Structures are given as structure tokens and as C-alpha cells.
């Protein structure tokens, strides 16, 4: 176990791509940090620099307070699970899991004990003699995980380890990894582009785009207080609605955009005209797609209504929807950063005094 810290970490590739742009991260001991961002945002590059597989252009990396910026991977006592699992095809499952122990010069008997321990954690004891090509995707992933933890590293790095699994397996594997990490409490950095995965697994989430860090925080913080419009629109399914105003950009989650009638009369709120174009019933929720008309143009907006609310909604009808004042977010028009609430010019109805 150890902390991981990056200070002003930068990576330029030869082709002038700035893959990682001055990233400051501080990962606490035993923390599960998720690096979240769309494809090409620099997550893998950042992870590979932390692993020591990629040269750092500038900046520093510390592990447990020790400067490891220029140390090779083997001097960092970490383990990594690649997206491809990178199992050694010429070795048996046993050989694969024992490989990191061999590097440490452990005698055979101890290696055997540890491999059996790691294999039993993931329920793959019966496959120890098989070759990787004789395993299913889920089994391979378990072998990769067992190999990653067998030598009890101080940091765990995982690069989209679930993206090669089918949806069903993914959900159970997500659970398993999370539980397992809780148990061994090893500092973990987990890369994904899937915000649902990130929200479900991370103690904290670091949101990246174009090599820049947009926000680091707990899932609740990201949800309640997104730092900018990128974070706001990247998280949540469906993501936050944004409306362009003269003074600023306003934003609200679909689940906060509700028919006016079901909001308590006394609550301070903003009201919007809403023309419904399509309604989707999805079990527990109703997704209502529509348009908020205004002078600056029509904006597509989604409302997510719990199915307990049975207000009838017809397509092509104009309704009045509302957002509680406390649920409204404000963003700067130029920078996209979140700002304190300011009055905006849209014709709104503020019911009660604040």
C-alpha cells in the first residue's frame, strides 16, 4: 500500500500530440481512484507513465513519498492489468501467475503456495495447468487479476479491464473487483471510459479530456457539483441538460426537470415551457424527450420521471416543466466552468421568496 502522487505531469508524443497536460493527482493510501474520460483523452498514457512504461516529458511521480519519476517499472512495486490481459501465451496459468514471484526469486514451494492462494481468490484453481488460449474471456481476466495481486504490490493499475467482457459478465466482474479491492485495500487506479462503471466503483473519480484534468471528486461531488460543462455532460445517463442563456449556461439533471404540477407549490423554482416530442417507458422511469423553445433557439432537453408519477404526457403538447432553484447549475459561457448562481433573463417564474 502506498500513496501515488503526480505533480505537473506532462507527456508530449513525438508527433506533437500533448497526451497528458500538466496533471496533478494525489491518490490516498488504499483509495480506489477511477480515471474517466472519452477515448483519446490520455488516460492510458497517464497510467503508463505511473507504471514507468512511458517516459515522462516533464513533472514528477511520487509513490509513498518516494520520487519514482525515472525508475523502471520493476523498481516501483506495482502491478498492472492491461486491456488485452497480456497473458503469456507460452506459459500455463500457473506459470503466468507465478511469473512475478519468479522475478523476486522466491523458491518454488513458496511460489506454489502463493499461486494457489491467488488462484483460489478468483476461483481458477482447476485451470492452473491450462494454457491461456484454452480459457474463456472471463477466466482470462481472472488469471490476469490473480497474477496482478499475487506478489502483493503496493499499487494496482487497471486499464479498462472489463472492456473485453460481455455485458453480463462485466456487471459481475465490476462487483468482484470492487469487493476484492475493499478487502485487500491496495491503492488502485482504474481506467475506464464508461461513466456508469466509474460512478459505481470509484471512491473518487478523476475526469479527463484532451489530456486535461477537469475534476477530481467523489461520485456525489461530480454529480452535485460538476466543475464544468464537460463533466456535467459526460456523467449521468442521460447526461445533464444545458441551456444557453444570454448571461450564462444553465444546467439541470433530467431527473430534476419535472412537470410543474408535481413540484411542491411553495418551493422556489424555475419554470420552462416544454414541448414533448417522444416518450420512452423504461421500467422504473419514463424518459421524456422534448424541446424548450426560447428566442435564442430551441434546445433539446430530456426529462426523467419516476414511474410513480403518472401525470399523462402526450407528444406534440406544450407543458410547463420546472426545476427546483437548488438543483439549477450555472456555468460560464466562455470557459464552461461552473459559477455561482446569477440571474438570467429567460422568462421564468419564481414562485416563493428565497
Amino acid at each position: 500500500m502506498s500513496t501515488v502522487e503526480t505533480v505537473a505531469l506532462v507527456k508530449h508524443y513525438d508527433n506533437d500530440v500533448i497526451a497528458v497536460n500538466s496533471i496533478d493527482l494525489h491518490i490516498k493510501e488504499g483509495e480506489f481512484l477511477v480515471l474517466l474520460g472519452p477515448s483519446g483523452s490520455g488516460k492510458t498514457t497517464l497510467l503508463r507513465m505511473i507504471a514507468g512504461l512511458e517516459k515522462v516529458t516533464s513533472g514528477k511521480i511520487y509513490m509513498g513519498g518516494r520520487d519514482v519519476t525515472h525508475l523502471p517499472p520493476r523498481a516501483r512495486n506495482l502491478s498492472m492489468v492491461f486491456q488485452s490481459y497480456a497473458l503469456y501465451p507460452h506459459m500455463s496459468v500457473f506459470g503466468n501467475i507465478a511469473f512475478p514471484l519468479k522475478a523476486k526469486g522466491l523458491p518454488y514451494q513458496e511460489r506454489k503456495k502463493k499461486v494457489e492462494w491467488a488462484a483460489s481468490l478468483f476461483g481458477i484453481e482447476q485451470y492452473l495447468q491450462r494454457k491461456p488460449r484454452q480459457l474463456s474471456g472471463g477466466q482470462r481476466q481472472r488469471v490476469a487479476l490473480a497474477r496482478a495481486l499475487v506478489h502483493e504490490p503496493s499499487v494496482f493499475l487497471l486499464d479498462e479491464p472489463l472492456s473485453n467482457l460481455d455485458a453480463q459478465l462485466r456487471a459481475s466482474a465490476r462487483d468482484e473487483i470492487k469487493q476484492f479491492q475493499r478487502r485487500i485495500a491496495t491503492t488502485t487506479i482504474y481506467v475506464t471510459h464508461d461513466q456508469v462503471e466509474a460512478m459505481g466503483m470509484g471512491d473518487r473519480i478523476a475526469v479527463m479530456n484532451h489530456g486535461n484534468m477537469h475534476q477530481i471528486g467523489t461520485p456525489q461531488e461530480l454529480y452535485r457539483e460538476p466543475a464544468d460543462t464537460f463533466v456535467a455532460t459526460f456523467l449521468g445517463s442521460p447526461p445533464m441538460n444545458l441551456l444557453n442563456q444570454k448571461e450564462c449556461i444553465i444546467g439541470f439533471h433530467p431527473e430534476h426537470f419535472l412537470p410543474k404540477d408535481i413540484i411542491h407549490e411553495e418551493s422556489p423554482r424555475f419554470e420552462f415551457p416544454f414541448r414533448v416530442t417522444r416518450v420512452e417507458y423504461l421500467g422504473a422511469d419514463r424518459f421524456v424527450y422534448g424541446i424548450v423553445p426560447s428566442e435564442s433557439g430551441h434546445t433539446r432537453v430530456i426529462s426523467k420521471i419516476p414511474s410513480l408519477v403518472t401525470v399523462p404526457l402526450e407528444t406534440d403538447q406544450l407543458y410547463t416543466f420546472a426545476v427546483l432553484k437548488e438543483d439549477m447549475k450555472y456555468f460560464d459561457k466562455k470557459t464552461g466552468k461552473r459559477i455561482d448562481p446569477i440571474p438570467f433573463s429567460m422568462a421564468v417564474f419564481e414562485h416563493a421568496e428565497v
Partner: protein
Amino acid sequence: MNRHYWLGKIFKGVMTYFIVGLFALFAALPFYQMVIIAFKSNADFNNPRENNPFIFNDPPTTDHIVYLFEQTEYLTFILNSVIIGVSVVLITLLFATPAAYSLARLTGRLGERLGILIFLVYLIPPTLLFIPMSQVVSFVGLQNSKWALVMLYPTFTIPFCTWLMFGFFRSIPRDIEEQAMVDGYSRFGAMWRVVLPLAVPGVLTVVVFSFMLTLHEYIYALAFTTSSSEKPISVGVTTELVRGDVFFWQSLMASAIIVALPIAIVYNLFLNRFVAGLTMGAVKG
């Protein structure tokens, strides 16, 4: 319908074996002829108009094989060829493997172009090079020595084998060796324990290929070895068993078969891997 089906199947099988058999016969005929000739007596061999050249008309004899071993330096030639072959294979592996590995891994897109450039060197024919090479050989004082060949053969085995191994290394995913580095090994350790074992077909291809090249090379061997004690087999038998216009055909045939047989056997054992090696180099290289 069922009957038709079976008839069709049988016909197909017969045709397949017929065609394959024809080709096998075509390929094997020279060997057959060589074996027959090697054991023919002079009287039988020198009278092809009356005697059937494909069979023994007189009883077979081992005279010419005995002659080969007792009256020529045949065993020395073989030994020389083996020494040259093994040395060249080792030198080639020693240079081509790290060169190919670094081209495949360390220099990005540049590696590919350099790889092709190195391959181009291989295409320069030795017949053009042996005159300048003789200067080099005399400069290092290796005239009339098999070690001159050990020095020269790598000039074409290394470029070709570098290119061949380059294709191999590139087909091995980078992840796997990076994983080994994360798992606690140095880059060299990762290459030794993970990359090389996966490149065994490539290494075998290099071994077979370089060995064969040294075995059938003629120009350099003829130019740079003159005494019997230094000659490899390709030059040895053809200079000692051809005297003026007298060809010792039976002994020549025997000498060729004795060398070809073990190689053919080894070749067949590794045939599958060897083909994999060549095609991988061709497709990915």
C-alpha cells in the same frame, strides 16, 4: 444420390493422391537417380546407350563411396562445412536478433524503413562483391582459410535474418513484454523470458536458413579457400572429383546424398514451423 456422393468422394481422393503422387515422383526422381548412380560400377555407368540408366545393369558396388572417403578429404570438407555453418548461424543470431528486436520496438515508424533498407543489402549479389571482399580478406590476413568464409557469410545472412526476425518480433504484442517489465523484469529479462520463447519459430527459421545458405554458397568458397584442408563441401567435392574433363560421377553423387539426407530429415521435422517463419516474415515484415 448416396452412391453418387461416395463415388464423388472416392474420385476426389484418387485424383488428389494421383496429383500429389505425381509431384512427389517428380521431386524424388533426381534423388533416386543419384542413389542409383552412386552405386553403379564404371562399366554400367559408362555405357548408357545399351544399359538402362535407371536401374542396375551390373551388380551395384560401393567402390566409389569407399573412394570418396579414402582418396579425398571428404570428411574434412564436411567438418569444415559444419564449422562454418555453425559459426555463421551463431554469429547471425547474435547480431540479427538484437538488431531486429530494436528495429521492431524502439524506433517507431523509422524501424520499418530501416528494416527494408537492411533487407536491400541482402539483394546485392555476391558475384559483384567478391573482388572487393578479397581485398578485405587479405587485409585481415585470412587468405585460404575457412575463417574468411565465417567472416563473409554473415554479410548476407545477417541482413536477411534481421529482416525475417523483424517481422517476427513485430507480431508479438508489446503488451506482453511490458507486462513482464511490470511483473519485475528488466527489458532484457522480458525479452529473454517472454519475447524469445515466442519467437522460437523465427529463430529456427534463421538457423535453418543461414545454415543452408552457407552450405550451398559457392563463389566466396571458391575464391577464398584453395587447400583441401580449408574447403567446405560445396567447393571441396567439385574441385577434387572433377579433374579436367573427368567427372567422378558416382562419388560426386554419393557425396551429395550423404550431405542432403540428414538435412532433409531435419528440415521435415521442422517444416511446419519453418513455413510459419517464412510466411510471417513475408506478411508482417
